[in-house]
């Protein structure tokens, strides 16, 4: 054996595990759902040709960003849920952990592979979305110029500016970044659930439950706390729910983006930080649960 020095943490090992996880997910056709997204975009753009361009772009952004959020969240849950159970069932985990690979590196590699998959998927969806915005803008612009005979130069310039502002703008990017942060949180939480789940179906079921609770809890909390009779039991229960389930509503900033409102820098930074904290905490829980697991 060569004189390689052992390191308790090796980025090379984590990258190897992440790369292998990504390759596995790609070759297992995890990207097929992107076709669904493309069909949704094409279908919605054909339908929207009937309405004014401001409405068209607003609805297009609403549908596209909403679809990107749901698809990315679903992919995060579905892709992560199968990783550990499959490795255990097919015993591939033995050959990996019989190497000098700490369990936290194994988990980090798995999560890293999913995060890479989510990034590539989101970039592909964003590219398709921006391409559609660009094409629709060019078509509408050509139409506008074709019917501009009665307009003055200033009116035409204003109309073109309005069209341009309604299509792509850089304010969409923070919204897409938040979609990624939310998906990363869900992937980390799914990884934690899969460390003690008995099957990947159970993990998916729990995560769908968590997804809905996570989205509804802030609304429920606001409603119950507004009631005069909300006593300490209700408050304790709400505190417990808030502690166990992530408040996913905090990551829904897409309404602002669709309405053309700029996400303030501080709100964006806070949301990203919150997502990173949630992701780290769930990863830590996953490691604690997995560390003592008998394989």
């Amino acid at each position, binding site marked *: 054996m060569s004189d390689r020095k052992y390191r308790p943490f090796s980025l090379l090992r984590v990258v*190897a595990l992440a790369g292998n996880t990504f*390759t596995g997910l790609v070759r297992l056709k995890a990207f097929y759902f992107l076709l669904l997204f493309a069909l949704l975009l094409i279908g919605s753009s054909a339908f929207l040709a009937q309405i004014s361009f401001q409405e068209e772009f607003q609805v297009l952004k609403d549908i596209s960003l909403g679809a990107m959020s749901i698809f990315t969240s679903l992919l995060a849950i579905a892709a992560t849920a199968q990783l550990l159970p499959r490795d255990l069932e097919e015993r*591939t985990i*033995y050959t990996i952990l019989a*190497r*000098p690979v700490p369990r936290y590196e194994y988990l980090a590699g798995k999560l890293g592979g999913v995060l890479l998959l989510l990034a590539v998927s989101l970039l592909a969806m964003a590219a398709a979305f921006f391409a559609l915005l660009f094409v629709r803008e060019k078509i509408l612009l050509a139409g506008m110029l074709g019917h501009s005979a009665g307009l003055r130069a200033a009116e035409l310039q204003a109309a073109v500016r309005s069209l341009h502002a309604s299509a792509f703008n850089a304010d969409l990017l923070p919204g897409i970044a938040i979609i990624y942060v939310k998906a990363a949180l869900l992937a980390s939480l799914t990884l934690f659930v899969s460390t003690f789940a008995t099957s990947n179906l159970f993990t998916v079921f729990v995560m769908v439950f968590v997804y809905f609770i996570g989205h509804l809890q802030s609304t429920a909390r606001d409603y119950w706390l507004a009631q005069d009779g909300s006593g300490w039991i209700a408050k304790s229960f709400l505190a417990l729910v808030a502690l166990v389930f992530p408040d996913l509503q905090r990551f829904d900033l897409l309404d602002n983006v669709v309405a053309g409102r700029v996400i303030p820098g501080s709100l964006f930074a806070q949301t990203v930080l919150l997502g990173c904290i949630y992701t780290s905490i769930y990863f830590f829980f996953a490691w604690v649960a997995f560390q003592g697991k008998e394989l």
Partner: protein
Amino acid sequence: MIKPAVSVRGLTKVFPTPFRRERIVAIRDLNLEVAPGQVYGLLGPNGSGKSTTLKIILGLVPPSSGSTAIFGRDSREVRSREAVGFLPESPYFYKYLTGIETLQFFGKLCGLRGVSLRSRIDKLLTLVGLESARDRRLSSYSKGMLQRIGLAQALIQEPKLVVLDEPTAGVDPVGTREIHDLILDLKRRGITVLLTSHLLAQVQKICDCVGILANGALIREGRLADLLAIENQTELTLENTTPEVLAQIQAALENSPARLVEQRQPQTTLERLFLDATNPSTDQ
């Protein structure tokens, strides 16, 4: 003092049964030692605790009591597995990877990279006879090929200890012979081998030492030659003999306290017969 390649001290493993009070004792107070360079066979019927023992040695399962160590380092330390190659029973690797990608993946886990990894992969693929299948996905490999790529991954970082769980399970006689030759080659190179097997005749050919487990306890252990020797008997094998010579031997025996237990014509083994029939070029 030379540290044993593997040492097991007072090892006990108890598995709780969910929703019941009773517990399953998989291993009871097991003690064994594997010397460096030795080929050690851990034998036993199904459920005797062989695989659990290997898993504890490799740090995959924690012991209930007692300890295991690899070259003096506690198995619970990740670092103890630095010089270990492992081939699990009926290995299932990532079927979406090709042969070469599989070895690259395990090589990187062992800290190999670049030219040294590439040359090591080439050498191992040649060793296990899979050069022509290097770019095929493992989903198209036969069971014997999977076993061979498994052996290659176990040897990727030139380990000092190789642990093989049923290495010939489901492999045809030719493949089994190749695996045996590979194990003997490892032994010649001073690499310690710890293996489990059901196939006792094969273990007999390659192991220096064996331990026999039953119900989680070690019931026999020692050097194979010592365990198998029948102390009060001597075996003679004659070539080109004549009936007259045999008559003289028998006459000599009649005038001595020795008794002829058996006289028969030696036979080849079924394995030898199969190998010769299927591959006439096989060395005798």
